[in-house]
């Protein structure tokens, strides 16, 4: 089954390119630490999902949308280098004028104006799939085109393809962003996506920046470095894994499986990704890992809500079972514990069958109303990913986003209370009422996650 990727705006297009590049390079990589037959099955599965073939050249199943031509032209020319995969030249849509970081402009002006042309491009790409599992929509949440137009298009996709799954891959802005209205844009995007998307896979610029600095040891961090880490995380989730039937049977509908495991509840749709190990290519050659070690760290990253395998707080422990409700004194300490609604662990590499996942099957990690049998699942493949002999990724639906979400809602509310910049939105038809609806919805989401 295939996934059609929709790359939106500057951020979505740059990341989308890196994602396809990682997927392609990894599937072509000879260092899979596995048999030839294994490697071939893996390649076939990856290709069917994300690429199609035209005259022997792999073409990404993607539609590129931006209101400025610059970034699209960049990624097109990068992908056009010989011996690689390519974008279809007929799957791009761009205009001359951007949205100027105004969400309302992207949503209310660009959206309706270009709806037909963009939906046609998507339709053509969908028709080239034997079967469509769903859409993968890559966008930022704080800008104008990607987020405004992205929210608009996600709604349209929901209307037109109600049986296809929609996962929005969204980039959370830096806490100290330069765009003054980024919090407005963020709450508008999030609340709209919460109504029309099936899952929001959130990646935070701040966290990835830290990974680049501390784990990858990059001195001068560029957007490209950050995007490569983001793409690596996504690849480690969506590259093929075995289905329940066992060896050589690769999962045909990973998007569907993932959603069924993680986001069936309409109020809990926010997913986070953590992966381990993550390091520069130079150190990779001199490192070895054991499954026990990797999983121990990954578990602690989860419960202490750490984004990377460094500076983890090892003091955080799951609350002891069958204790009376917590008193005020212990509340602060317990607050640091990150309760999960559901987790999916993905293991890739050598001796994967021997990995012991007991640590993730502890009921104390989960809510009282959903035990590990329902809340935890694991995917595996002996095929190594991106030259890491052993690697693990964790997709979790947990309380981790309560804090950043609450902060964004709080900042936006403060601005809204003083009516700052509202006219920029009302000018294009996004009314105060829409803001209020967004605040209500997101506060409800925060409350729901807090009360897990």
């Amino acid at each position: 089954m295939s996934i059609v990727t929709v790359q939106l705006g500057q951020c979505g297009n740059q990341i989308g390119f890196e994602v396809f590049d990682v997927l392609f390079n990894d599937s072509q990589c000879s260092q899979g630490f596995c048999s030839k037959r294994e490697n071939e099955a893996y390649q076939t599965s990856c290709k069917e999902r994300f690429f199609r073939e035209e005259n022997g050249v792999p073409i990404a199943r993607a539609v590129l949308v931006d209101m400025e031509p610059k970034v699209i032209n960049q990624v097109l020319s990068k992908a056009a280098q010989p011996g690689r995969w390519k974008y279809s030249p007929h799957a791009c849509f761009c205009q001359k004028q951007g949205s100027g970081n105004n969400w309302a402009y992207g949503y209310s002006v660009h959206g309706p104006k270009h709806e037909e042309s963009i939906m046609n491009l998507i339709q053509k790409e969908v028709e080239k799939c034997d079967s469509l599992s769903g859409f993968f929509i890559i966008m930022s949440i704080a800008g104008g085109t990607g987020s405004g137009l992205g929210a608009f298009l996600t709604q349209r996709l929901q209307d037109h393809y109600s049986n296809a799954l929609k996962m929005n891959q969204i980039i959370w802005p830096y806490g100290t962003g330069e765009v003054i209205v980024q919090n407005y844009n963020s709450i508008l995007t999030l609340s709209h996506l919460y109504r029309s998307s099936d899952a929001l896979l959130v990646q935070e610029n701040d966290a990835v920046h830290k990974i680049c600095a501390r784990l990858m040891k990059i001195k001068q961090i560029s957007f490209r470095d950050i995007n490569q880490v983001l793409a690596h995380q996504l690849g480690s989730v969506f590259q093929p894994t075995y289905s329940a039937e066992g060896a050589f049977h690769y999962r045909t509908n990973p998007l569907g499986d993932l959603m069924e495991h993680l986001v069936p509840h309409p109020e809990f749709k926010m997913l986070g990704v953590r992966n381990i190990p993550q390091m520069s290519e130079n150190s990779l050659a001199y490192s070895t890992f054991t499954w026990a070690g990797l999983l121990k760290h990954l578990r602690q990253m989860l419960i202490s809500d750490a984004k990377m395998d460094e500076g983890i707080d090892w003091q955080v422990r799951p609350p002891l079972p069958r204790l009376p409700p917590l008193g005020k004194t212990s509340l602060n300490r317990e607050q640091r514990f990150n309760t999960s609604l559901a987790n999916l662990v993905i293991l890739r590499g050598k001796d994967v069958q021997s990995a012991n996942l007991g640590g993730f099957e502890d009921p104390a990690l989960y809510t009282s109303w959903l035990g590990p049998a329902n809340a935890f699942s694991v995917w595996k493949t002996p095929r190594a990913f991106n030259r890491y002999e052993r690697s693990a990724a964790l997709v979790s639906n947990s309380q981790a986003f309560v804090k950043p979400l609450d902060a964004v809602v709080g900042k936006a509310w403060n601005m809204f209370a003083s009516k700052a910049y509202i006219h920029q939105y009302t000018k294009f038809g996004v009314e105060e009422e829409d803001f209020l609806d967004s605040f209500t919805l997101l506060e409800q989401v925060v409350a729901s996650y807090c009360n897990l």
Partner: protein
Amino acid sequence: MGRRRRRMDKEASARAGAGARTLLDAIAALSRSLPAGPNPEIFRRAKFDRPEAAPALWQLLFRLLAPLQVDRATASLGPGAQARWVKAVLCYLGYPRPALAQLPEDGSHGSRELLLTFSWLLAQGPLLEWLLAQTCVQLGDQVPTVECEVLTSPGLAAIQMDAEGPVDLRRLQWLMGKLRFQWQRLICSQQEQCALLSKIHTYTHGCHSDRNLGHLSVTETEMLRDPEGIHQQLRALEQENARLEAALEWRRYEPVFWQWMDTVLGACPPEGPAAPMFRSRIPEHECGKLELATLQEELQTLQEELQALRELLCEEVLSRRQAWEAQVGGLGRGPEWSAARQTLQQNVDQELLALQQSWKQDRSPSLPQGPHRLVKIKAGSAGAKGLPVAEVIRLLRSQEASLEAVLCKLQGQCQQELARLVGTVPGLIWILPPRC
């Protein structure tokens, strides 16, 4: 030649009257036509209630009663569990002899009772035909026709309280969402399967030796790709052939078997009053003449009563009609009258049509039942036989509509029930969740 001579011999001896040889042949044929049929000797031993025959017969009954789909899951059941399964299914089917329920489940004795059970199943209906159809080797692509029945009963199931206390609503929402995703995935994979099937049919167009079919099926394509598969198919076909031949032979000598079964029944100790029978089609020779006579008498009375009722009805209709005409006759026959008459006529016609349609639906369909080979034909091409797709789709649509109506009704009932429950808690405001 040899076989024919043997068969003629058999016929001769059958005419001579249930010779031992013929009986043996009959049982052997029966055994060969059953899936994993037991050794004929088992039947003979069971007649004398020999304990060693019991386990094989339990197993045979289990094989006959376990649906094919659950074969894999139930194959691992131990003999005790298999026996319990058999008892439960037979009870459900209305098996009349209470002696079966009392048999030990370890298979230590009771082979004669089991033999009787088996023959009851055999006499019930086309068991053999059904089994043969189930294991039939399929070469073409199958299109399942109208297999779905309306399973739901229009009414709320009794509310079951969990012993562990109240369930968190969020858990229910979670499970509901899971169902929704599974439903979407099912649709996706069905669409994928259809797309691939269509590809195979298009690519193999003109490859089939049968011009009416035109293209290959999945199985046939698979055989082309993997010649080893042909041998396997051939073996499967040969086995099926052998079973079909055995079934034919069994049909010829069936009476001998039933005569023998009478002697088995005769060897049973007399039983207490049998449990009331449901659904059983009693073979004639098991029914006493006395009972037959009473049945006939009852039938006679019923027919007479029916006739009397009919006459009464006719009289009633006649008098009503006369009264009505007298009433109408008093009215003027102006334009209003004719307009009213027309609308009435239209209403009646519509209702009649609706009735006819629902009757047709209930009878489900004028379409032939059973499996059909899926064949891609250009629309309007001559000589297209079989199942018209449009018809099948129409039927499925109407089923979908009626299922949706049931769903709506159930949802309405649930909401009413919820509203009622909410009403009992003062100060509670009920807000429906967004998408559930």
